[in-house]
């Protein structure tokens, strides 16, 4: 038998992860917008413990990073690994177990964080029972992904495609980081204390913190970029050699950066300086990667005019290039002295999170939706509308934070003619009000875009299902 049989993919579970991702995108950006509004108008806290800024901020970060980001990564990883290895998943059953366990964990995360159960480590707040549960889900994910590649037909697919390498970096490093940073001694079901203290705890926390950005929010999403940009542009990736360099320098280099979060603190100076120097060097691989994606479009740039999905993907690379330039600048000690502790940091995170992570995910999800449900989108003009809402919302957000951050930094260190501090802290808080309002507006625009996307997806799926039924009756 020599006929080419198209492999049967396990797309049911990919569909489930994809939908869950967009539902959480709407929820997560809504929580964020509400938390931002609380800083502009504090009465919105309504003296209610569960929604005060301190707790809602954490619910927001956990929802967007783990619920939205995690679901996107799981959807795309399973989508890509099947297609690049020409075979179904190693275990479809385990993938479904992973799906339900992960969603249950996320639901419990939102509830426990609202109640105030927290390890109080930034981006790693979940208390130990949930912490362990998430680690197990992650190991399950890693196992299924790895075995799918290991069991591929090596005659047909001798090489592992580049997108998968980046997913590997994500899977391995996040397991490593999550486990080490979570080491703690439980004192009750709802409370544990970090095993480390002081300087070591700070270093391990930011080693985790920056690599959560570098691996969870970058490596995995670069895997997405390396698959979906060439697919959507219908061209091969610009340079294979560049992607090899991009991969290994990212794996080796990113891990050093955490220390730049602790400059001028009680962390010994050598660690912070080391972190800053390598941060600067990281511009090269990051820009190499961004160019690799963008140049894939060489000779096909005109498609940006008509292909709205490609617009999301290319805009995301522009933001990736922008924030990977901004990051090293902020890591330089003299800039960090001004920017640290200010809103500039928040703006930087969001230019990466909204501009890069969310946009590349949105592009990939639109692409996948059409392939998975074998249909056109319900409305292309709504995608274009979403693109502008997301772009303008992101720009509003980061411009507001640049201005407020730099202003804060300058006000705190300003002296008057008599050599005394020019402003009280409260004056700097009052000066932030207009920018906090502007940020909230940016958030509303971005959230509205996410809601438009969810609507468009639901209508697309309904349309596809109706057509299926018609075909079945015909």
């Amino acid at each position, binding site marked *: 038998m020599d006929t080419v049989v198209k492999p049967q993919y396990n797309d049911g579970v990919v569909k489930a992860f994809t939908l869950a991702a967009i539902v959480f995108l709407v929820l997560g950006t809504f929580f964020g917008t509400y938390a931002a509004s609380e800083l502009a108008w*504090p009465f919105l*806290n309504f003296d209610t413990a569960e929604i005060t800024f301190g707790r809602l901020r954490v619910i927001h970060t956990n929802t967007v990073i783990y619920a939205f980001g995690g679901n996107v990564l799981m959807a795309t990883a399973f989508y890509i690994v099947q297609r690049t290895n020409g075979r179904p998943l190693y275990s479809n059953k385990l993938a479904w177990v992973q799906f339900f366990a992960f969603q249950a964990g996320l639901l419990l995360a939102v509830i426990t964080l609202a109640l105030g159960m927290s390890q109080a480590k930034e981006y790693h707040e979940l208390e130990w029972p949930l912490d362990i549960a998430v680690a197990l889900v992650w190991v399950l994910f890693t196992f299924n992904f790895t075995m799918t*590649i290991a069991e591929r037909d090596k005659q047909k697919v001798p090489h592992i495609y580049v997108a998968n390498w980046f997913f590997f970096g994500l899977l391995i490093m996040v397991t490593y980081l999550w486990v080490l940073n979570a080491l703690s001694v439980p004192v009750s079901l709802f409370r544990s*204390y970090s095993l480390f203290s002081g*300087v070591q705890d700070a270093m391990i926390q930011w080693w985790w913190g920056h690599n959560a950005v570098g691996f969870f929010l970058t490596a995995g999403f670069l895997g997405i970029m390396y698959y979906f940009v060439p697919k959507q542009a219908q061209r091969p990736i610009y340079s294979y050699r560049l992607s090899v360099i991009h991969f290994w320098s990212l794996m080796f280099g990113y891990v050093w950066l955490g220390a730049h979060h602790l400059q001028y603190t*009680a962390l010994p100076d050598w660690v912070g300086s080391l972190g800053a120097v390598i941060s600067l060097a990281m511009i090269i691989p990051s820009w190499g990667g961004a160019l690799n994606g963008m140049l894939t479009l060489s000779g096909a740039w005109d498609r940006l005019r008509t292909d709205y999905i490609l617009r999301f993907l290319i805009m995301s690379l522009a933001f990736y290039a922008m924030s990977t330039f901004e990051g090293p600048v902020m890591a330089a000690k003299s800039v960090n002295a001004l920017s640290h502790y200010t809103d500039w940091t928040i703006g930087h995170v969001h230019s990466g999170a909204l501009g890069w992570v969310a946009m590349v995910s949105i592009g990939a999800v639109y692409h996948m939706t059409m392939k998975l449900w074998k249909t056109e989108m319900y409305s292309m003009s709504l995608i274009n509308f979403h693109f502008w809402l997301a772009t303008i919302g992101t720009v509003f957000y980061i411009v507001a934070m640049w201005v407020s951050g730099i202003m804060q930094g300058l006000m705190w260190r300003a002296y008057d003619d008599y050599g005394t501090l020019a402003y009280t802290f409260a004056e700097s*808080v009052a000066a932030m009000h207009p920018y906090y309002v502007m940020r909230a507006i940016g958030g509303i625009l971005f959230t509205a875009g996410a809601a438009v996307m969810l609507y468009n997806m639901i209508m697309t799926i309904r349309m596809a299902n109706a057509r299926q039924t018609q075909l079945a009756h015909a």
Partner: protein
Amino acid sequence: MAAQKPKNLQEWFEQNVFALMFGTALAVSVASIVEIVPLFYLDNTYEHTAKDESGNLKSPELLWDRGEKRLFYKDEAGNWASDWKAGDGVRPFTPLELAGKDIYMREHCMYCHSQMIRPFRDERERYGHYSLGTESIYDHPFQWGSKRTGPDLARVGGKFSNEWHYMHLMRPQALVPESVMPAYPWLAENSIENDFFNTKRDMKARLEAMRLMGVPYTQEDIDNANEHIKGYTEMDAIIAYMQVLGTMVKLDDNKVYRE
């Protein structure tokens, strides 16, 4: 195309998924080892263990020399007292302060308030002497924070009265009109003896866990830990915690604690 013998390392990684896994794990481990491991054995990670050129400790006075002294006890009038005085050196938190830190962590105060003063002139004038690593050796986890939506709290202890803190936490805008801080009225209603779902807040277990990790509590401290938080509210506890911040060490402006 059939599988061929790999021509170089990269080809080997691309053909063998387990080799790729191993290579990646190796690449990400280097920085982790170089930047983190030395912090556990180098003397100058903390100021109280840093040595000068002749090998003598430079600032051993930063740590409380406890000896037979008591961290907390009930005096004849039935009030809680301590043999430690502000400035005697870094000591473990009392059970009430530690319970207050639990509340501080539950409400995520550290997302808006740092506890880490940097060595700049303006920060010195606004908040006080720059923070030392030694000041957070008993902080499991550390609470340095990363953002100042509100001011730094590393040396807030003793700067305001307990009554000021109470009124401020009940309604921040009543004292600081520009403030964007939420109000925390529930702290005054909840007993610190209760934990989530009305379970008991077991300070004994907490101190034992801390001792396991090297915080020098005595058996007596542990035995009396639950007694020490009796009758207080969450508000009392968090104020007790804030009032000790930055007061443990007396710092000499002319001394260089850190290079």
